């Protein structure tokens, strides 16, 4: 196993993204059969998880449901694409201080997604002390209760983490360094984590096309306290995000900049507002507070967050609350969630009237069309919807659960960023989900 230490020693391996690519190769080189579960010091194990499910939709005609922004989404009103997935994980434990893991998840994604997007985790960890851990590679950001386990359906009670809250969460993994410390005070267990690094990943646009995303200078910190069944968690993330938008958006931006040169009073301000709708990057920060109370048959889960992306329609507050009650092998639950943008959707400004005297009516009409496109583009970023749902989870086997959930959604005007092929209009409808979640190996 000295190969792992060689990773650190290799002079050319400086960037964590390169380290990430090393770890899977080293793990897969293992000669120990996958699934070995002996009690020796140096062990490999293979485990996995998956979900098979369908979701049916009524309302929001021709819109495609998605679980989160990285997915291709449903191609019809009844689809297995949003929820069905398969994940595998290889763990290596090289004696008590060393560990490593690689996890990949196969699911419906936009075309031409690179292999690196399939890798959720790939790290090498070292514990200098039992409750202190340092990891290098790709790790999950500790910024939500369920973001890092959002693909492991068996690990949460619902059909899926609430889309209003988790639908926009592209930065769930970070390539870099991760530090974790745990400690106890009385009956309380504390955990602090800090992660720094960068990430190249993809999201899907409203038409399901891949948009490469590059995030740099990411810093994520999380602090949680757990005592007597109550978990409270605070988290913060800051990073520089850049979207590689399609040429059409860039052409729109250039068109707006050209308009700015026209000497019409007040036009510059309107151009700025329209330009904000064509956001392609900037400093992003995220703050969240979460609480989970798990006592006896009752489970109460609530999270609230604020995503701050200055001068963009992405600025939004999110929250959800869920109450569950368990009897024997069945958990019944209800859930309500909301995502609300910081700014109202702006109406299309009347540029034609102001521009016509200066540039002529034909050019003014073209400018008005440009304003129309830019206004409509905002709905590709704005999440403005609420959902109320209820369902049950039946643990019919020791490693599998059947879930049934009904959701009623309400999407506001220009708030359908969580849907594929939406038209920017308001919509209401119902989702009915039936899934089986399973795990093996852990």
């Amino acid at each position, binding site marked *: 196993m000295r190969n792992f230490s060689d990773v650190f020693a290799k002079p050319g391996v400086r960037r964590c993204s390169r380290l990430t690519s090393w770890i899977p190769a080293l793990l897969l080189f293992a000669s120990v059969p996958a699934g070995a579960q002996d009690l020796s010091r140096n062990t490999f194990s293979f485990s996995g998880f998956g979900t098979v499910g369908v979701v049916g939709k009524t309302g929001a005609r021709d819109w495609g449901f998605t679980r989160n922004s990285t997915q291709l989404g449903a191609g019809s009103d009844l689809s297995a694409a949003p929820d069905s997935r398969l994940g595998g994980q290889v*763990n290596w434990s090289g004696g008590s201080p060393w560990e490593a*893991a690689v996890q990949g998840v196969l699911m419906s994604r936009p075309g031409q997604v690179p292999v690196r997007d399939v890798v959720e985790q790939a790290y090498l960890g070292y514990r200098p002390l039992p409750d202190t851990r340092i990891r290098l590679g790709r790790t999950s950001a500790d910024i939500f209760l369920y973001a890092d386990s959002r693909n492991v359906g068996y690990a949460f009670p619902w059909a899926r983490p609430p889309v209003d809250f988790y639908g926009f969460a592209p930065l769930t993994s970070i390539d870099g360094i991760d530090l974790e410390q745990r400690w*106890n005070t009385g009956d309380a267990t504390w955990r602090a984590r800090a992660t720094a690094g960068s990430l190249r990943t993809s999201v899907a646009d409203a038409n399901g096309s891949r948009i490469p995303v590059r995030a740099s200078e990411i810093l994520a910190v999380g602090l949680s306290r757990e005592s007597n069944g109550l978990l409270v968690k605070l988290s913060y993330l800051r990073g520089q995000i850049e979207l590689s938008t399609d040429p059409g958006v860039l052409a729109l931006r250039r068109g707006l900049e050209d308009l700015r040169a026209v000497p019409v009073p007040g036009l510059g301000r309107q151009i700025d507002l329209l330009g904000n709708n064509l956001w392609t990057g900037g400093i992003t920060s995220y703050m969240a507070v979460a609480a989970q109370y798990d006592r006896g048959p009752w489970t109460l889960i609530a999270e609230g967050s604020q995503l701050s992306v200055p001068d963009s329609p992405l600025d939004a507050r999110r929250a959800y609350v869920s109450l569950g009650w368990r009897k024997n092998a069945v958990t019944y639950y209800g859930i309500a969630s909301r995502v609300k943008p910081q700014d109202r959707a702006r109406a299309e400004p009347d540029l034609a009237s102001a521009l016509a005297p200066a540039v002529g009516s034909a050019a003014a009409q073209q400018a008005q069309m440009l304003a129309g496109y830019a206004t409509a583009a905002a709905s590709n970023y704005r999440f403005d919807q609420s959902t109320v749902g209820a369902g049950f989870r039946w643990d019919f086997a020791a490693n599998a659960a059947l879930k049934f959930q009904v959701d009623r959604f309400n999407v506001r005007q220009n708030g359908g960023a969580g849907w594929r092929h939406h038209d920017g209009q308001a919509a209401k409808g119902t989702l009915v989900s039936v899934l089986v979640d399973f795990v093996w190996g852990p």
Partner: protein
Amino acid sequence: MSRMLSSRLRMAAALALSTFSLQGPAASADSLYVVVSAHNPIRSLSTAELVAIYTGRTRAFPNGDAATPLDQRRDGAARAEFYQSLTGMDIARINSYWARLHFTGQVRPPQTAEDDAAMVQRLRNDPSAIGYLTREPQDSSVRVVMRLP
């Protein structure tokens, strides 16, 4: 013939006795014995400390030494009884809980020992290990630090 049968019975009895010489008879049907290596300085644990170790919240004993929790067989009754008694959660919830910790890279679930004998064998060789037995151990190489319930 009867002498031969009697001899075989005695042999069977001796085998049974040797099998159970490691551990005495179960004190009660519901009791589980939380044990560590005799080389481990820990003499006892509180319920909260044991819960912290077996729910992955800490990787250390109260004295700061590394703790390596071990489980009985994943689908066995002993494991289900242990977690029910310790945390009040049934085995499906425990499996779900550990799945979340495992697949998010937080903590690996305890490794498993096939039965009491395998558990004792592992404890003998590893001072950091902690496990549980379905019978009170008679072996001096391990020490009971808690009895459940």
